[in-house]
């Protein structure tokens, strides 16, 4: 029976989980999604043009605010390109400090994601737990850099602040606490059957499709694609650090969850190495105001995947061209594939599972279908509730029990 209907799902304002505006147009046949298109663009701020009108140092602060969750990723990627053009040799200590902040950022981002994912499927106590633990990282970042978000740690030629031995001790203490808590999350993720059932087989992206669609980061790694810029194209201190690239073979949202949680464990391992092996020395070299003409490509493994920056200089104090391609833009294409032939109820978690950062992304349009007879608009909040209800009724997956179970042991 052919019964097709256009359903517009504006991600609009009502999206407590994702926090960013974007719009999806879905074509439904019954309850199954046959086509989807993404329209974003609500976050386009004209940053690349603004970069050409400001000096390199001003651009550093602007680029940092491409995205608040991975601000250090963008700032470092930018500064690496400029340093390469200028032929600066950044002191090793600065590279280690950059890597330290980078891993701390990865931790806060993955914990944030874990909470958001929990919220999407109706497991709200997970949101409360993970964001409580995330505060441990936020405190450390504030201690080291002076701010909880948007750290301003980089300068052209190195970093702006040093790490004292007392601060290093605090970092190690925090890592110990977080590791214990993360082990707890690993236990929940691998032992609670409700979670496993809810997330397995959802949002499937085969290895072949992941490669064809250019997926990056945990989204690609959960499909068995061992792509990680820290290993493929080492930057900062990663060439000297020992860590594993975490992949999963399940190619679904469950795999993306497992990859991120295990990456947390790797991050703790990396941070301990960084503190232990931190070389002595200066934290920055002097950079010229005018950067000699040249160009460079810089890549960084942000929590969401490969962040790509290209900078071209023309011998003045302002760049000629700055190009930013953030990881979500590379992953957003894959969402359409993941939603193909799936239920509307899968939308929230599938989209959340690529850990979308639309302020990083400019926008990506995937139009597979156009022309509709009936069309309706579903606010995100409604879809969120519908999705939880659908899985309760159709699959018997209910998180109210889990919420109660974990809320009991939950203390502020």
């Amino acid at each position, binding site marked *: 029976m052919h019964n097709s209907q256009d359903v517009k799902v504006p991600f*609009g*304002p*009502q*999206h*407590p989980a994702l*926090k*960013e*505006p974007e719009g999806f147009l879905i074509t439904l046949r019954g309850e199954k999604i046959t086509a989807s298109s993404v329209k974003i*663009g*609500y*976050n*386009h*701020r*004209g*940053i690349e*043009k*603004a970069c050409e*009108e400001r000096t390199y140092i001003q651009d550093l*602060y*602007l680029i940092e*605010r*491409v*995205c*608040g*969750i991975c*601000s250090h990723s963008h700032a470092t990627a930018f500064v690496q390109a400029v340093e390469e053009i200028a032929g600066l040799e950044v002191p090793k200590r600065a590279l280690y400090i950059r890597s330290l902040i980078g891993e701390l950022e990865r931790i806060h981002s993955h914990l*944030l994601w874990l*909470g958001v994912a929990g919220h999407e499927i109706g497991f709200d106590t997970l*949101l*409360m737990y993970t*964001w*409580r633990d*995330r*505060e441990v990282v*936020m405190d450390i970042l504030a201690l080291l850099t002076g701010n*909880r*978000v*948007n750290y301003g740690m980089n300068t052209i030629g190195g970093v702006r602040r040093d790490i004292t031995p007392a601060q290093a001790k605090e970092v190690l203490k925090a890592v110990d606490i977080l590791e214990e808590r993360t082990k707890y999350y690993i236990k929940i993720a691998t032992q609670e059957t409700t979670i496993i059932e809810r997330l397995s087989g959802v949002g499937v992206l085969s290895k072949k499709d992941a490669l064809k669609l250019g997926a990056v980061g945990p989204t690609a790694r959960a499909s068995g694609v061992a792509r990680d810029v820290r290993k493929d194209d080492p930057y900062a201190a990663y060439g000297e650090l020992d860590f594993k690239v975490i992949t999963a073979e399940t190619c679904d949202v469950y795999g993306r969850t497992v990859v991120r949680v295990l990456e947390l464990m790797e991050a703790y391992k990396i941070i301990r190495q960084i503190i232990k092996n931190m070389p002595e020395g200066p934290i920055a070299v002097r950079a010229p105001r005018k950067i000699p003409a040249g160009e460079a490509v810089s890549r960084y493994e942000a929590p969401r995947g490969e962040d790509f920056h290209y900078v071209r200089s023309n011998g003045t104090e302002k760049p000629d061209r700055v190009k930013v391609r953030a990881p979500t833009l590379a992953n957003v294409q894959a969402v359409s594939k993941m939603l193909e032939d799936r239920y509307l109820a899968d939308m929230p978690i599938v989209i959340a599972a690529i850990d979308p*950062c639309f*302020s990083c992304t400019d926008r990506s349009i995937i139009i597979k279908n156009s022309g509709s007879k009936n069309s309706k608009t579903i*606010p*995100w*909040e409604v879809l*969120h509730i519908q999705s939880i209800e659908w899985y309760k009724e159709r699959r018997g997956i209910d998180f109210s029990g889990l919420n109660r179970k974990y809320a009991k042991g939950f203390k*502020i």
Partner: protein
Amino acid sequence: MGVITKVVNWARLKSPWVLHFNTGACNACDIEIVAALTPRYDIERFGMILKGTPRHADVLLCSGPVTKQIESRLKRIYEQMPEPKFVLAIGTCACSGGVFEGCYSVKAGIDKVIPVSAYIPGCPASPKAIIDGVAKLLVSLEESEKK
């Protein structure tokens, strides 16, 4: 002021229902707003509840410098909120555009589009600053109510 109005105002003062809207921000302020909900800060104990729709909200927590693409949506959301309504500009971008002032695609400030009741600067505005801002707004409401 009639009894009903007093009761309604009291309910509003004691537990404002809050809507969060991102007008093109970098996310930093947004995650700090969500952090304000979580155990460390926990604005729910003040009775503040994050609602999903403008039609139930008293207070609009607005972040971001207002990109041109989202401008009409922001206006629409403001119109959908019932009176009396209050708008909080969260973060430096929402107050004045922040680092994005001068960018071609940006209006540079919430008050260029809708009236703002309170400005909470910061890049990002920390959860403490946000709670402080909301509390100050409630106090000023209480005081204007007494008049």
